[in-house]
């Protein structure tokens, strides 16, 4: 069973169709990078996988579980699918530790002491254990993003979605986040990353999926995609990112 199975997924907003029939099968332990121009539907597709966007037709299954639209189905899916956002979206009124333990205590019903142990473990994993009691605003962007990743990891997701996780960061802060993502990849985490950064895609992914006009236009290993793209659209896209 693949970790994530998308079958003929369509998504439209009114008359505007942004995803026009995407089928994709993602095996456990692989890292897939979704690339493509703005408006190609890659972020929308990612957000459909944890139900932040409802699909219009088709189906999505994660670990054999259907991504439905009912509240209970959505909550079940979100317990096995983590997401990290471009703009971190930490809760500014809570400490780093509480950002991580909130869902552990509310959703997983762990006692606070146990949740704090989990928080310490995931913060150590992203190298920020010393920020346990800090507030998000006291952290740099890179640190905030690592906390956001730790917050997702604490829920023990089976699949992690990364939505342009380094785009909002200064170049010198991107590296620390990239490093954390690479570590996760090495540990066998199944990840789907939307990214505009080809360096990132090349470094962490096992497979590149190029989205164009709401469809999967071409896919392949990073070596293949970057050195010998088949379609003129991908060729052109890659050339445009080199500028």
């Amino acid at each position, binding site marked *: 069973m693949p970790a994530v199975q998308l079958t003929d997924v369509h998504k439209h907003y009114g008359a505007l169709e942004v995803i026009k029939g995407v089928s994709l099968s993602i095996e456990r332990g692989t890292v897939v990078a979704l690339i493509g121009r703005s408006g190609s539907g890659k972020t929308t597709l990612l957000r459909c996988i*944890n139900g*932040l966007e409802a699909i219009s037709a088709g189906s999505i299954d994660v670990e054999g579980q259907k991504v439905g639209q009912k*509240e209970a189905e*959505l*909550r079940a899916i*979100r*317990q096995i699918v*983590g*997401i990290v*956002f471009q*703009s971190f*979206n*930490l*809760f*500014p*009124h809570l400490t780093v530790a509480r950002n991580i333990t*909130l*869902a552990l205590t*509310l*959703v997983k019903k762990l006692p606070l002491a146990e949740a704090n142990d989990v928080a310490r473990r995931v913060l150590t994993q992203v190298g920020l254990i010393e920020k346990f009691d800090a*507030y998000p*605003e006291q952290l740099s962007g890179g640190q905030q993003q690592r906390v956001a990743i730790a*917050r*997702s990891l604490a*829920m023990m997701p089976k699949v992690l979605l990364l939505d342009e996780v380094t785009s909002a960061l200064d170049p010198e802060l991107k590296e620390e986040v990239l490093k954390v993502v690479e570590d996760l990849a090495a540990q066998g985490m199944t990840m789907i990353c939307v990214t505009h950064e080809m360096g990132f895609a090349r470094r962490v992914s096992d497979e590149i999926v190029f989205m164009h006009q709401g469809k999967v236009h071409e896919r392949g290993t990073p070596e293949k995609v970057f050195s010998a793209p088949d379609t003129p659209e991908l060729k052109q896209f890659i050339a445009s990112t080199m500028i």
Partner: protein
Amino acid sequence: MRDLSVNDLLTLPGAALWTLALSLMAFVGGGLVGGLIALGRTSRAGWLRTVCAAYIQVLQGTPLLIQLFIWYFGLSVAGMNLSPLVAAAIAFTLNSSAFFAEIWRGSIEAIPRPQWEAAASLGLTRLQQINYVIVPQAVRIALAPTVGFMVQIIKNTSLAALIGFIELARQGQIITNVTFAPMPVYMTVGAIYFVICFPLSILSRHLERRFHAGRAAH
């Protein structure tokens, strides 16, 4: 007619306590009802948003004095005799609930959409998202305008004088009627309102500066 004495003026602080009591009822009652209306106004259920919007529109779009008259005179003709205190308490509670609801709706809507999404993505229920993520942040934004509106409530309670409820303004009228010394009496009444309201205005301005960005310094 008799001359104004110090004893007359000394009845004013006692009457001011009724002003405070009525304000407190309007604040607590209006706060509770307003909180529910604000949640209804930001609900995902379209019909509930419409009902709450209509509630707010009706109460904000009609004069408070008329609402007060309806609760007191209107209901008494219909056979329900409410005391001035009860009628005033109901009228002020409902009226301020509409204003609180609007202030708090704005504060809830000021919390960026991604905060909801982040909370939902962690598996929190809608109610948990509201309780643990949205409201704690919205409260900071709402604090200054809420305290500011309390000043409005206090001044508005003077309208209760018109249905015969004896609070600060009404007591001033009563003294004026027997002494015919409106200037010193109403100056004192005004001064007492000011003494009550001014600290709240200062507090509101202080809170506004402190939480200006919506995020507190810790």
